C-alpha cells in the first residue's frame, strides 16, 4: 500500500516536470500555426527552421562559442587547479578560490551587468566605436569567466585526491616537472578535466542571461534567438528549435552519465551553480 503511494507520488511529480517539455516536443510537430491545439503531424516547422538562415548562424555561433570558451576555461582552469594545489599559503589559496567562485555564487544577472559595464569601459578606454568589433571577444571572455569555477571545482578534487606521490615518482625517474605533469598527472586526472570541460560546454551552450547583457547584435546564439522569437507571438518554430536543443542536451547528458555509470559506481559530485536562470 505504502509502496503504491510512493510510486503514485513520484509519477505525479515527474509527470508535472515532463508534461510541459513533452508538450513542446509534441507541438513542434503541429501542422498548423497553433500552440494550443494539435491539428496533425508535420515536419513543416523543422523544415522552416532548417531553411532559416538565422537559426543556422545562431547554431554555428553557439557551437563556436561553447567550444572555444570551454576549451579556454579547461586549459586555464586545469593549470590553475594545479597551481592552487601547489600553493603553500592557506590564505592565498582561500583568497583565490573565493574570487574564482564569485561568478558561481553571484546572481548571473549581476555578473552579466558587471561584464557589460566592463566592456563599455574598455570601449571608452581604447576608443572603440563599434561594440560589434569586440563583441565575440566579449562573449568569449564572459563565457570563459563563468565556466572557470566549474572546471576548477571539477579538477581540484582529483588533484587533491591524487596527491603528490605520483609526480614525485615521475621526477625521481627523470621527468622534468613539465613532463611529469603531462605524462603522469594529466592522464590520472583526465576524468575530472573532461567532466569539467563537458560542464563548461553545456553551461556555455545553455547560457542566456549573461549573453543577453554582453551579446553584440552581430553574434546571436540559440538561447538569444529563442528569446527574440518569444518576443513576437510564440510560433511552433520556436518549439522545434527548443526540441532540437532539449534532445541534444539529453543525449549529451546521457552519454556523460553512462560514462560515470560504468567507471564509477558513485557519480562524481560537483556543485552546479546555485540555481541559475540560464
Amino acid at each position: 500500500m505504502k509502496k503504491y503511494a510512493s510510486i503514485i507520488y513520484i509519477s505525479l511529480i515527474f509527470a508535472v516536470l515532463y508534461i510541459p517539455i513533452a508538450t513542446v516536443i509534441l507541438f513542434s510537430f503541429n501542422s498548423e500555426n497553433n500552440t494550443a491545439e494539435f491539428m496533425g503531424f508535420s515536419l513543416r516547422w523543422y523544415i522552416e527552421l532548417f531553411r532559416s538562415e538565422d537559426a543556422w548562424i545562431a547554431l554555428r555561433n553557439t557551437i563556436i562559442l561553447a567550444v572555444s570558451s570551454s576549451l579556454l576555461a579547461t586549459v586555464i582552469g586545469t593549470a590553475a587547479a594545479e597551481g592552487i594545489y601547489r600553493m603553500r599559503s592557506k590564505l592565498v589559496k582561500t583568497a583565490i578560490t573565493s574570487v574564482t567562485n564569485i561568478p558561481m555564487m553571484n546572481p548571473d544577472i549581476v555578473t552579466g551587468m558587471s561584464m557589460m559595464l566592463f566592456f563599455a569601459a574598455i570601449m571608452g578606454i581604447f576608443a572603440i566605436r563599434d561594440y560589434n568589433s569586440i563583441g565575440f571577444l566579449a562573449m568569449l571572455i564572459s563565457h570563459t569567466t563563468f565556466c572557470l569555477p566549474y572546471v576548477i571545482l571539477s579538477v581540484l578534487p582529483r588533484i587533491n585526491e591524487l596527491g603528490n606521490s605520483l609526480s614525485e615518482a615521475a621526477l625521481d625517474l627523470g621527468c622534468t616537472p613539465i613532463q611529469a605533469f603531462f605524462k603522469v598527472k594529466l592522464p590520472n586526472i583526465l576524468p575530472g578535466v573532461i567532466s569539467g570541460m563537458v560542464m563548461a560546454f553545456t553551461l556555455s551552450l545553455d547560457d542566456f542571461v549573461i549573453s543577453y547583457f554582453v551579446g553584440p547584435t552581430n553574434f546571436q546564439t540559440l538561447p538569444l534567438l529563442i528569446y527574440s522569437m518569444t518576443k513576437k507571438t510564440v510560433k511552433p518554430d520556436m518549439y522545434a528549435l527548443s526540441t532540437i536543443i532539449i534532445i541534444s542536451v539529453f543525449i549529451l547528458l546521457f552519454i556523460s552519465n553512462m560514462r560515470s555509470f560504468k567507471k564509477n559506481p558513485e557519480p562524481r559530485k560537483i556543485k552546479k551553480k546555485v540555481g541559475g536562470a540560464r
Partner: protein
Amino acid sequence: MAKLIELVGISKSYDGEKVIDSMNLYIRDKEFITLLGPSGCGKTTTLRIIGGFETADEGKLYFDGVEISDVPAHKRQVNTVFQKYALFPHLNVYENIAFPLRLKKVKENEIRERVTEMLKMVALVGFENKSVSTLSGGQQQRVAIARALISHPRVLLLDEPLGALDLKLRKDMQVELKNIQQAIGITFVYVTHDQEEALSMSDTVVVMADGEIQQIGTPTDIYNEPKNAFVADFIGESNIVDGVMLADKKVRFASHTFDCVDGGYAKNEAVDVVVRPEDIDVVSPEAGMLTGLVTSVTFKGVHYEIIVDIKGFKWMIQSTDYVAPEATIGIYIEPDAIHIMKKSKYSGMFGDYSSFSDEIDQLSDADTAEEF
C-alpha cells in the same frame, strides 16, 4: 670504500619546527645503510633531501664529491622506492618499468631487453600486461623496485618500502632486497622505524631521534654498544639504571658494586648503565648479586619474560627457566653484560619496566605512519 653521498650541516624546518638539526652524515659506495628512528625523527625528510624532493634550509649535499644541493630531483643519479609505491595507475606493469627508458628515448628492443631482465630479477615474468591496480602489495613493491632500478642509478632510496606488507611477506622481502642489493652492487639508503628490519639488513645503521643522529654504526655495534639511553631503549629491550663509576671497570648501581669492562670515565661520574634482559641470569636469592620480587611472568615461546621489582626499579629478564610470580629471586650479571653510557638528555626517560605492557609495545609497532 669511497664516500658517495655526504651531508654537511643539513638543517630543515617546517613551519618553524626543526625537523633536522645540523646533520652530518656520509654514505659510502655500495653499502646498505639504514636510517632508523621513530615517527617524526627526521629520517624520511633526510631521504627526501637526498632524493631532491625537499631543499635543506641550511647545509650542503655532495654526490661523488660534487655539490648537488640545488640540483632538481630529475637530474640526480638517485632513484626512490616510495612508501606507497607510487606506481602509475594509467600504465601497465611493463610500461611502468619502461617509463624511465622511454623518457630517455631508448630504442624499443633495448627497452624490451632491459625490462625483461628487471622482471626476471623481481620474479614478475608473465605480469607484463597486467594493470598495476590488480597486483598484490608485494607484487606492486617489486614493480616499484624494478622501475627504480632500470636506469641503473648509483643509489636507491627506499622509504619504508615494506611498511604496508604483512609480517611473513615482509621477512621474505627483507631477504630479497638484501640479495638484490648485493647482486647489483649499488648503494641502498633504507628508511624504517622497525629496528629488527634495520639490524638484519644493513651494513650501517643510523639511529635518529628528534632530528639528530644518535649513533652510527654496524648493527652489532649499535646493539652491543648503544651510545645513550635512547638508542639502548629503541634497539631491543634494555634495563637502564642510574649508576656511578667508582673507578675504571667498577660501577655501582642498585646499591651494589659490579665489575664491568668499561673505563675512561671520571671518578664518581654519574652514568647510565644498560643491561640487556637476556644477559641476566636468574639464581637463588642467596647467590644473587641483587634480589627482587617477581611481579609478572609472560611466556614468549623461546623464553619467559620476567619482570622483577628490585628496590622499586622494575627489571626485565628473559630466561628459559620458569619462575613463579611472587617468588623472590636473585640475579647475577656477568661483567661483560654491563654496558656503561654517558649521561644524555634521554637519561631517565627509558629503561624502567614499571609501566610496561605488551599492548603498548604492539601499538607503537603498528604506528607505521611517518609524517613526511
